[in-house]
């Protein structure tokens, strides 16, 4: 591992491992869509499917805000409030990130 930078070596095991990773990931991406296509367009399942993106999104960022500590929770709250008021993605991200950066600088994490 001392040959640096190693630009073009492709070992067979590495390529097969990566292809395995790619296959399971792509399989789940496409499989999820094709399974959803088989669900009814109306009724309970359609209702559940409409609630799904919000539920996934919340479950992605709430734990990561908690991982960032008190300043992360404050930053996430500031981002949500700014977005609700200004409806501007740039502004909302900027408010949250500046708050977290400044908070870390002065208070630490």
């Amino acid at each position, binding site marked *: 591992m001392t040959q640096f930078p190693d630009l073009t070596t492709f070992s067979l095991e590495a*390529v097969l491992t990566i292809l*395995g990773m*790619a296959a*399971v990931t792509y399989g789940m*991406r496409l499989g999820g*869509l094709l399974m959803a296509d088989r669900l009814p367009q*109306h009724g309970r399942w359609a209702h559940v499917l409409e*609630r799904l993106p919000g*539920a996934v999104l919340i479950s992605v960022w709430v734990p990561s805000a908690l991982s960032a500590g008190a300043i992360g929770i404050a930053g996430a709250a500031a981002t*949500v409030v700014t977005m609700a008021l200004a409806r501007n993605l740039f502004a909302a991200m900027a408010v949250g990130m500046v708050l977290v950066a400044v908070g870390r600088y002065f208070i630490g994490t």
Partner: protein
Amino acid sequence: MSRPGPAQIGHFDPDTIRRGAIACLPLLPSTIIFGAVLGVLASQRGLSLGELLFMSLTVFAGSAQFVSVDLWRETIPAATIIIATAVINMRYILIGASLRPVFRGRPLWVKICGMHMVADENWAVTMTQPNLANPGFLLGGGIFLGVVWATGNIAGYLLGGGIPDPEVYALDFAFTAVFAALTIGMWKGKVDLLPWVAAAIGSIIGHYTLPGTWSILAGAGAGVVTAALTWRPDMDDDSLEAEFAVEGRDAYGAPEGTVNTGKTATFSPEAGK
């Protein structure tokens, strides 16, 4: 013909792809820095740059790549890496399922081509577009993020260090911030309230009790179960699904490639309702 606006968007319209790429612009700094951090890690773990780029463009999933590259050794623990990737990326089943309205009425080949470059970021941006949600928009964001991600990988691999610490500029928080902000755009009305509260509670409990990214599945699962339990038949009329079906011709382009006529409404299966 009678309607102005994006009435006849094809499957992968160049202009829509460009808009999708531009919509992901706020994620450029964080994506390039984290791509560079992964590049540094890969050079330390003995991947070649070619192998890393091959992984970035075929797997295209940031958190799974970090864990996999971290597990990488001279004798590659292939099974461990592939299982870890599958567990971390299990959320893509749900993300794929939620993309149903974006691919409504599109042929299978569009789904096959459009579902590869789906990351959390361009998915979230696409799902919150009221009129642009289209396979091309999704793909445009994915291509943009893929190019930026790979550029970061190359920079980090070649520099081998000297990368700014993402935490100093809160660049690690950019992902949290963009997802938090986009949640507002997903609000469809008070039917969302209970499932969202359940998702938040489920993911918080998962965060403190489960390892790794299982909290995402715990939260999403809680949200799904709550949504299923709170459904009532009278919810159907104002459901977004019905709206998608009617507006689908308009917002997402004509189905099955029939993009060149002005009479989509006459043979629309929903027209009789």
